[in-house]
């Protein structure tokens, strides 16, 4: 019987070992971040273990940002990059689970303000009609559709957009920039194929359009046709490619590569204040002025200047990006900003404009900073640094 006891003791030791191993890995205590004016959406890990976080940015000009013990986890709530933000609230349409939600960050967590059942469309672009009214565009049941969301109560009004018919050989709409101006909505669109058996040589429809929509009735007044390029703007749920300047003129830039068109150039257009036609006197061949680079995204930084996130030439969408400074009114290239190449994600909401200065997040090979560009002095300075090996800087935002 003694032997038996001996082994009971050994078993007991084994149990102790289990408990000690499990005891080792206790959950850590966290600290609460304080409210700040800026935030970033960051991503770490490799698929399928990628994780998204919203981290506050205490200062754009100094310090560091790390995800170590910091950042509100997005997993389980908003597991995505297409998250738009206004006044500190985040909005996301989850087409898989059929809901549209409003969220904010508090005490280091992403909280759900409200989620509503919504699956009428799968969103591509949006425009704010006013600070409480968000208009979103997307496709649903092979139609072009819209939804008008009153974000305070999260009520929704939906409808169909009467756009041009999908031509033979193409199966779906593709949407580009969206911009609200004086009770009118402007929406770039085109047509796309879903025959993936020919990928990557996808068919390209040679014409693209800008729909002019009356905001009050949501009726499509007309579609402006363009044949000199394709892909009128990128899906702005990722990054903007249009703006309205101080003169109330609307500008947008095309990105043909987004629609598998590797031949057409990136072109910048204008729709003048009060007008609903593409300004025939304005045509800025951005690619021609930039070694055949393409405009992936564009921001207005004031004083007639804009910054373009510029993708280098090539038959691929996942190439490196640079930032270029343009003169908006004259439609000319000023220069390539002397920043390291951005090796990050394809679509990045990378620019914040504050006090007449542009703050640009660059995911570089070496170190990742938010750079400050001061147009007045034409100077670039390093600001806050992202440290600790962050894989993707996806968005930086101004919260207030």
């Amino acid at each position: 019987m003694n032997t038996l006891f001996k082994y009971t003791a050994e078993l007991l030791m084994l149990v102790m070992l289990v408990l000690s191993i499990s005891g080792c890995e206790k959950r850590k205590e966290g600290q609460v971040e304080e409210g700040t004016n800026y935030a970033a959406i960051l991503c770490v890990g490799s698929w399928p273990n990628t994780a998204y976080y919203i981290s506050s940015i205490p200062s754009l000009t100094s310090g560091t940002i790390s995800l170590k013990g910091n950042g509100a986890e997005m997993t389980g709530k908003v597991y995505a990059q297409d998250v738009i933000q206004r006044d500190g609230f985040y909005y996301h349409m989850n087409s898989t689970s059929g809901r549209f939600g409003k969220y904010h960050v508090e005490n280091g967590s992403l909280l759900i303000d409200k989620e509503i059942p919504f699956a009428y469309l799968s969103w591509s672009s949006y425009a704010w009609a006013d600070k409480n009214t968000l208009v979103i565009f997307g496709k649903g049941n092979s139609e072009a559709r819209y939804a008008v969301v009153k974000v305070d109560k999260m009520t929704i009004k939906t409808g169909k957009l009467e756009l041009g018919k999908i031509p033979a050989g193409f199966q779906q709409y593709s949407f580009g920039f969206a911009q609200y101006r004086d009770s009118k909505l402007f929406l770039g669109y085109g047509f796309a194929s879903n025959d993936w058996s020919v990928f990557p040589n996808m068919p390209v429809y040679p014409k693209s359009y800008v729909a002019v929509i009356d905001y009050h009735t949501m009726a499509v007044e007309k579609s402006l046709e363009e044949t000199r390029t394709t892909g009128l703007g990128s899906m702005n749920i990722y990054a903007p490619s249009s703006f309205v300047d101080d003169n109330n003129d609307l500008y947008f830039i095309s990105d043909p590569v987004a629609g598998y068109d590797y031949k057409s150039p990136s072109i910048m257009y204008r729709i003048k204040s009060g007008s609903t036609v593409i300004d025939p006197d304005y045509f800025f061949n951005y690619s021609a002025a930039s070694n055949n680079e393409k405009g992936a995204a564009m921001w207005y930084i004031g004083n007639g200047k804009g910054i373009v996130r510029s993708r280098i030439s090539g038959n691929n969408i996942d190439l490196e990006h640079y930032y270029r400074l343009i003169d908006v009114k004259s439609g000319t290239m000023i220069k390539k900003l002397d920043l390291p190449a951005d090796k990050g994600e394809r679509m990045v909401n990378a620019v914040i404009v504050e006090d007449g200065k542009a703050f640009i997040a660059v995911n570089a090979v070496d170190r990742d900073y938010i750079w400050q560009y001061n147009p007045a002095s034409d100077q670039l300075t390093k600001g806050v640094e992202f440290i600790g090996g962050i894989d993707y800087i996806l968005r930086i935002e101004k919260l207030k």
Partner: protein
Amino acid sequence: MHNIKIMTYRKILLLILLSTFSFAAHSQTTSTISGYVKDGSELITGASIFLKGTKQGVVSNAQGYYELKNLAPGSYNVTISFLGYKKDSKQVTLKPGQNLNLNFSLKKDQQQLHDVNINGKTKTQQMKESGFSVNAIETKKYANTTADLNQILNRSTGVRIREQGGLGSDFKFSINGLSGKQVKFFIDGIPMDVMGTAMSLNNIPVNMAERLEVYKGVVPVQLGADAMGGAVNVVTNQKVSNYLDLSHSYGSFQTNRSSLTGQYVDQKTGLIIKGSGFFNSSENSYKMKNVDLVTGGLRDGNFIYDVNGAEYYKGDARRFHDNYLSALGQVEVGITNKSWADVLFIGGGYNEGRQDLQTGFDQQTVYGKVRRANFAKSATLRYKKNNLFTEGLNLSVFAARSKDTYKTTDTAFRNYNWDGTYFTKGYTEMGNNVKTMSNIIRPRTYAMANLSYMINNQHSLNLNYTIDHLRNKSFNQLQTDRDSVPGLINKQILGFAYQQNLLDNRLSNTIFGKYYHLGLERSKSIAGRYMTQDTTFSNFGYGIASRYKVTEGIGLKASYEHSYRLQETEEVFGDGLNVLGNPNLKPESSHNLNLGAYYSFQVNKNSFFFEASGFYRNAKDFIFPVPDVRSKLIKNENQSSVRITGFESEARYSYAQLLSLTLNLTYQNAVNTTKEGQTESYSVPGTYLNKIPNQPWLFGNADFTIGQDNLLGKDTRLQFNWFTQYVNWFYLTWESKGNPLDKSDIPTQFVHSASLSYSLQKGKYNISAECRNLTNQLTYDNFKLQKPGRSFSVKFRYFIQ
């Protein structure tokens, strides 16, 4: 570097081979007794053969062969014994230089056999004492339970099966931290998927299997596959005798499971008919707790035609679209013990599965109409001949032709909610722009040949070749009726192993090499013309498995393999539907190492068995499907690398047939070794060397059985089983990242189950009652997808042999 290694291995191999042949060519003046030990046609491995009154004795090898050499001429009493069988002896007289052939046919000792299963050295015990790191599980003790093979395997060390939901749901099988396509499944040495989709571990009832083998990281060449992380082999009943095993169980959530296996042997002609089949069905209507339900909106029955004003609130709801049904039938007809064939069988099978899908990736994504169906038919040929041309040369061949069809129907433009209500969606439930009935049709030809040669008792060779030719057609049935550009995969694996048993069988070494050759092909339309794209890959893997017996009860084990998981056609060339091609894909590869020891002993009727091992996996270039934002399709990429170090242990105690207790525990530390992160950067990703998230790293099981014979009448047995499963909590995301105040995790789970069974007439009639998840715990494996709560079932089983 690799080439040099291979060279050295080859040299060593050659050297060993040469020395072996010189042994064999040794002197001829003394006499030899040799022969085979069998039970009917089944070979017996590990039987002790000794000469009474001398110290000479040997043990029969894996082919049932034994050899007593260097014997002086004279009279001997050859005695043979094997646990579970009646002792036998023969009187012989040896002339000088004589090679006497002496075969034994052993008879089962029913009484002893009964005890053996409780404490003796069974086949599973022998497997545990091999050099490979292996879980060998005798399914007999579970035969009266409603368990499927997954549930049994999930109780063993190093294995973690993560299920999406109830009966028939998708699962991920992990062996020592490697999972998915890195783990391959076999039934009697044949890849399970050759037989069709329904032939899977979550379907096969326990009664169809006799034994389960889980090879961890290092896989013998007989299982010819690119099983990088390990392999599971289900061994069915191979006895040449009549039997019938018939069972049915009924349980919670309208779950029915029936199973039938049987065999009829015509003793006169040697003709054998084998049949097996199962039928599983369930509504899986278990309760989901605290999920999103919808109130408000304008409704017509369950249809919310205007979602304006509709809101979510939390509540409980039963699953409403999770019906599952699977059925399988297989028949084999053949002969045994002919001069030209030891075994020759031809067979045919059909299986079918129908399944409603209730959720997507997470439980916020609710489906109400998505369905899957699969059906497969197969024809097989099995041949085996021992002592072909020369003694000790054994050949076995298997060939199969099958066709598997897999259909997913996703045609509803609806978004369902947990309460069964739905509203209109702008695309299908799974997110397709058009109604989709996707078909995947896979005609397949598979063949395997295995040649083993016993040079003598100490040395043996094994050569294994498999060819797997698979055409993959995928198309949306609502748009077209065929795939104009089917993918083709042609996989050939050649394995060679050399095994030696030295120092009186105390040291056993198996050295092996595997050559993988992969051919992939797919046509593609370029400017209206079809062009064939093709590619071939070759890889060489190798390994060794060793065991040293310190004493009869104590053994040390070590094994290593450099293994691969090859690319598939869809991964490289896409499927033209949902997957984009990636021609730059590399195979996944891993260095796997196991070190272990076991210790078994008996004190009177108390038997003890302890086993502990450490494991190391250094795996790189994992292939993962990554969603592409622009195309909304997925593209496979070599995404990450992982290093796993772990420890597992098991302790078993039993007292005769009365009680048994098994405790096991597995700890695995999987860290991310992806140095080249998602973006090109000089700095190391912040997740480098971090623990891989969303993966259990500490888990264990306790299994207690107590049973008594003849308690309620003669030839009866009453048995009670208690089973507890423990999984320690783990984070769903990276441990060090994000504010710890609000990190998502899966909490620690303790799940208890109990069953009581009663057998009559020596196990002819059996009835059992079972309760799973006794405490009705909320359990989950993946992203908080809830699994079934408490459930009850009863099972009736009729068994004759």
